[in-house]
């Protein structure tokens, strides 16, 4: 595993993205474990959504989804394959939120209450929740995932990208801008190859004996 060198100073946005990565990852590990230790309870909840009729598919969703969430959470916390993981989370969260909203609408209609006041166990791992809180939370997590998907959260990552170098300049806009400025206004301390410049420039500018 290759860690990103600390030669590029992370911006405040980068550090916020790292925090988002840890929060999102920690959340998925916690929620995944809550379901993984009680798979039969999660099985019953998944069944209530009536998404699949086939027992094998139903069992597979209930048995594997929690562990998959834990895996994605750990990847985010460690900073491995961050964009691919963020993509997976968007693909999990977006349809799941729609399904939860659909069920909440059914409950609201059955009970004759306002949609936003509906409270039920959606199978998210946190027990009964108010639907507006769940929708807000999921929307926030989708946004955070999209942010990470854009390439943020690179500092303190074990292996940000699985394929290709972590330090590809074109993938880091700030670094690219920094390098552009460097070319335009050469640093008095560094040469273009990154080595100490003072000696080289001194020798180049030195008058011939």
């Amino acid at each position: 595993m290759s860690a990103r060198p600390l030669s590029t100073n992370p911006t405040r946005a980068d550090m916020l993205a790292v925090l988002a990565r840890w929060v999102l990852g920690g959340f998925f590990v916690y929620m995944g474990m809550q379901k993984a230790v009680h798979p039969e309870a999660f099985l019953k909840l998944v069944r209530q959504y009536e998404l699949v009729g086939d027992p094998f598919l139903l069992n597979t969703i209930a048995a594997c989804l929690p562990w998959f969430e834990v895996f994605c959470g750990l990847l985010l916390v460690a900073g491995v394959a961050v964009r691919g993981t963020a993509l997976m989370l968007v693909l999990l969260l977006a349809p799941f939120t729609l399904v939860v909203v659909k069920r909440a609408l059914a409950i609201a209609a059955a009970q004759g209450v306002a949609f936003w006041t509906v409270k039920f166990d959606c199978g998210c791992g946190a027990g009964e929740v108010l639907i507006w809180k769940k929708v807000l939370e999921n929307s926030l997590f989708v946004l955070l995932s999209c942010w990470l998907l854009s390439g943020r959260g690179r500092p303190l990552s074990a292996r940000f990208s699985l394929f290709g170098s972590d330090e590809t300049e074109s993938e880091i806009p700030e670094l690219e801008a920094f390098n552009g400025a460097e070319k335009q206004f050469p640093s008095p301390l560094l040469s273009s190859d990154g080595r100490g410049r003072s000696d080289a420039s001194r020798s180049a500018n030195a008058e011939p004996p």
Partner: protein
Amino acid sequence: MRKVLLEGLAVAAAGAALAFAANALSPRGLTLTRNYFPNDTHLAANAQPGTNLLRPGPEANAGVPVTRLETQIRELGLRAADSNLVQQLFQDPRRDQDGIVFVDARDAEHYQAGHIPGAYQLDYYHKEDYLAAVLPACLAAQTVLVYCAGGACEDSLLTASVVLAPVVPKEKLFVYEGGFTEWTNNRLPVELGQRRSGRMLEAPR
């Protein structure tokens, strides 16, 4: 973008492999090929239009009492037991000699935290671990009463209809609809830990 898609696929593949392995290794893992809800097909065939007897309705999680369980019990040819009948059975001296057997269909965690005194445990989702102890007692008993948490919980119905009914005559099988929640609400005795542990929960005053 192509790299991100590839990375996503790699994460999905690795995550799926790990998830299958974790479920297989976990002592609480599900058996993927088992149909945990075989009653769904039977009840769906007999369901009246507009009524869903398969699952607790949307209100089930919102604390609204679900009374459809009794309909399902009858649909499956079993007998429902109300609170009075359960108390009669509990006080019947035949219970001490296992002439009347109580079966708790909840998981180990809930069973250990408290159950009807003398009740056998038979966790429907891990039945293989309990059948050797429970089945002989049920076969020998004159009456078998199965309960779970009550309310929207279907585990007692599933245990009675799927696990016990094929081997124990249905006339002997009762399902306690109110379940353990109703039992504790009535402030009846609760045993802690293992069966016949002798440790009783003190009733709240």
